[in-house]
């Protein structure tokens, strides 16, 4: 996609994006209000119960969300941010690879152990930031994660779980 059409897209999309943020905060506030409502009434006597402050925080969030939405309706604030004006387009490849790294870590850490999961994550994040040498990254990744594992688990006695490689060493 060329630069021009991207710029035009951002300029038109900005107040709408700001509105989404404002509404998101409202939804978050409503969620807190629901959660506060769901707290069981305490049988203990208290001047201020367990529900009061959660209700207050929920109301504050809803009010702030409405305020943000109102600002967005009047044109939003993003277009005034210097950093956003100079920002390059969204890098879906980098975000995708990074996201894959996070998902891999979550899926594998309990199953294959920290060293393998973190090494794969390391390689994926390196390539997200434009590294073109996955084999070298793999090697560095294994060294870094193994070193971290040995420092934490063996020298310091922090339990970071058992895994396939951890069982061998």
């Amino acid at each position: 996609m060329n630069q021009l059409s991207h710029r035009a897209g951002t300029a038109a999309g900005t107040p709408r994006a700001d509105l989404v943020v404002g509404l998101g905060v409202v939804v978050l506030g409503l969620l807190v209000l629901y959660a506060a409502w769901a707290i069981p009434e305490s049988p203990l006597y208290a001047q201020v119960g367990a529900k009061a402050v959660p209700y207050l925080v929920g109301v504050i969030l809803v009010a702030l969300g409405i305020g943000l939405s109102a600002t967005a309706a009047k044109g939003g604030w993003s277009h005034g941010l210097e950093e956003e004006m100079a920002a390059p387009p969204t890098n879906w490849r980098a975000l995708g690879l990074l996201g894959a790294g996070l998902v891999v870590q979550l899926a594998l850490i309990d199953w294959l152990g920290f060293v393998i999961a973190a090494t794969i994550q390391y390689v994926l994040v390196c390539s997200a930031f434009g590294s073109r040498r996955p084999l070298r990254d793999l090697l560095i990744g294994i060294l870094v994660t193994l070193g971290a594992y040995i420092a934490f688990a063996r020298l310091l006695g922090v339990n970071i779980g058992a895994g396939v490689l951890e069982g061998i060493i």
Partner: protein
Amino acid sequence: MDSVAGLAMGFANALTPINLGWALLGCFLGTAIGVLPGIGPALTIALLLPVTFKVEATGAFILFCGVFYGAMYGGSTTSILLNTPGESGSIITALEGAKMARNGRAGPALVTAAVGSFVAGTVGTLGISFIGPIVVDLALKLGPAEYFSLMLLCFVTVSAVLGGSALRGLTSLAFGLMLGLVGIDLQTGQPRLTFGVPELLDGVNVVLVAVALFAVGETMYLAWRHVEGGQEVREIGRLWMSATDWRRSIGPWIRGSLLGFPFGVLPAGGTEMPTMLSYYAERKMVKPEFRDEFGTTGAIEGVAGPEAANNAAAAGILVPMLTLGLPTSATAAIMLSAFQSYGIQPGPMLFTQQPVLVWTLIASLYIANVMLVVLNLPLVGLWARILKIPTPQLYAGILVFATIGTYGISNSVTDLVLLYGIGIIAMFMRRFDFPTAPVVIGMILGPMAEQALRQALTISQGDWTTFLTRPISATILALAVVALVGPRLWAFRQRRAEG
């Protein structure tokens, strides 16, 4: 025994070659472990506790003091270089410190943190020796009403200087308050905002949130805006502080130390409130020509002040720990357990029953402090080299260490989901210009304020005027009103004068 004689005896004891050796070993181990991302002083001391059991009591506590201060030094190093604070006290240091490091001023940031810690340690040690006992008497007079007013003052000062937009700053603060509510309510035992997830009953860990907001969120934002082939070049720049840096640091060091110590002594003080207050005070007091550096290229005042406040408060925490047997931070709680494992019960009688041990401990705190400056200043160049690691490998490494730090504490995938989830929220916060610091502030102070409010109202049997009728509380509230209204009145008068 008076303080001077006690201190003299303590130094005579601590300065023997073997005890100096223990102090040196402690400093080295503390720095080495504390410098690992995501590991703060409390965890460092807990990890090294078994080592101290192999040594007799005096030697063990000297070793301990070295570890304690060493871990604090190491923690600020990683906060500045990698933006991964290991404990809540160094979160504020990461704010400006990491910005300085990214703009080629890692050296001065590390040096001002090290020298600031030294200044604060000196103030703190003098404080423990001479005014500690007096402050404890005073601190015992403060009740929940006063603490609630104090936290209200913190909220006001924070939101009065939120920067860009009050609406967005307050939203961040409210988000932090919400995170602070998650878990079991301390007074009634009811689970709140846990949505049926058992892992959330213990609440959300503040350090996890800080690492998610700063390290994970930042990494994601950089990936979002990553330009293929465009390598970011990080300059190390000059390592030593310039004459201007020294001039700009001296005030914050002293103010931070004087602010931090009394807070550390308060039974509900801790290191968080003074570092935040110091940060916002420095931001307000900075000379106009450097004001723009705050939040953009990183201002040295924003590292010097909070780092001094952090260390002075950490020393202050030892006062209630030693004289009342009251641990007010995680670090102090672990130290207390170490005392107990030697059959020593800290409390009002400690100074009379164990004078040699206590004064040697205080003296070796000071010695550890001197040693650390001498050890760490030459290492600044070595640490700053971390920034020369190429972007892909650096950020991949940061993410891996953020993960191991989180997973290592709890062994729970739920915590990793939280880490990454809050990281994604932080990425959007960065995009839409929401400040991240108020999240952490709300999260730490929110539960403390709620607790104090409910205790105060229980004591006063529901009478809300308790906050106004108690003189100290009323004074603090008056200060809060001045902080809120004062700047506005001032601006109004200036406009009238000009117009």
